[in-house]
């Protein structure tokens, strides 16, 4: 098997490991946060939403294990408390995260024009470091390598989450 992680029929594949861990987390969340539509407040909804989001990232990190720096960083953050999570993942609300990322883009745009090509690379590398878990501790070479793996895992994560959501919606 050339690349066992890609095969959907392989029970040991990243995709199936992630699916199992994530589904277990979803069940746990459901059990500990039972809701009925009349009594749940918007705040409760946001809390649960954030738990699902964190569970998704942590489940993927668990499926990857400790062989990658980004997954180790994610697992470390998960173990080290709520406050870290709030700082790093932000809020679940859509408008909040959009505002934050728009604000960042606006600010950096002005500086971008003044830099030459080489500084571009550094500037973008800094941004990338903030996006990849554990990125700030990595040198440029590791950062690119970890980023490639991180993106592959994020794509798998999104696909599985979408399948689960579509399935539940039927």
């Amino acid at each position, binding site marked *: 098997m050339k690349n066992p992680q890609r095969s959907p029929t392989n029970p040991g594949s990243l995709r199936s490991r992630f699916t199992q861990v994530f589904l277990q987390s979803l069940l746990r969340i*459901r059990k500990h946060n*039972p809701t009925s539509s009349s009594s749940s407040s918007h705040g409760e909804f946001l809390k*649960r939403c*954030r738990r699902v989001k964190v569970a998704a990232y942590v489940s993927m990190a668990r499926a990857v294990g400790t062989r990658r720096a980004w997954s180790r960083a994610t697992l470390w953050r998960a173990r080290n408390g709520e406050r870290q999570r709030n700082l790093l993942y932000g809020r679940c609300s859509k408008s909040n995260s959009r505002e934050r990322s728009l604000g960042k883009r606006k600010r950096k745009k002005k500086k971008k024009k003044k830099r030459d090509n080489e500084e*571009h690379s550094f500037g*973008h590398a800094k941004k990338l470091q903030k996006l990849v878990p554990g990125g700030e501790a990595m*040198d*440029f070479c590791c950062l690119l390598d970890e980023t*490639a793996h991180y993106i592959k895992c994020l794509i798998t994560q999104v696909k599985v989450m979408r399948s689960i959501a579509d*399935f539940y919606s039927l």
Partner: protein
Amino acid sequence: MSNRRSSSTQSGTPSRITDDQMIELVSKLRQLLPEIRSSRSDKVSASKVLQETCSYIRSLHREVADLSERLSQLLSTVDADSAEAAIIRSLIM
């Protein structure tokens, strides 16, 4: 530690990493990005690749956030126990 300048457009990093390594890593990233992959040009700069990578990761994070919202809404409406086994089977096999 001086910055090594080379004739290729993909330079601008500390001298520890060779240009070849850099090119290899950058092209590996390029393969993953949906927009750059579809453009035929070989001469995409490292800066552009990094920029696209950042946007792509941000958009993936947004998708995860949206899907989490959707899932947490759906969680309350489903009887999970019977659905779980069915989902695992359908996704893995």
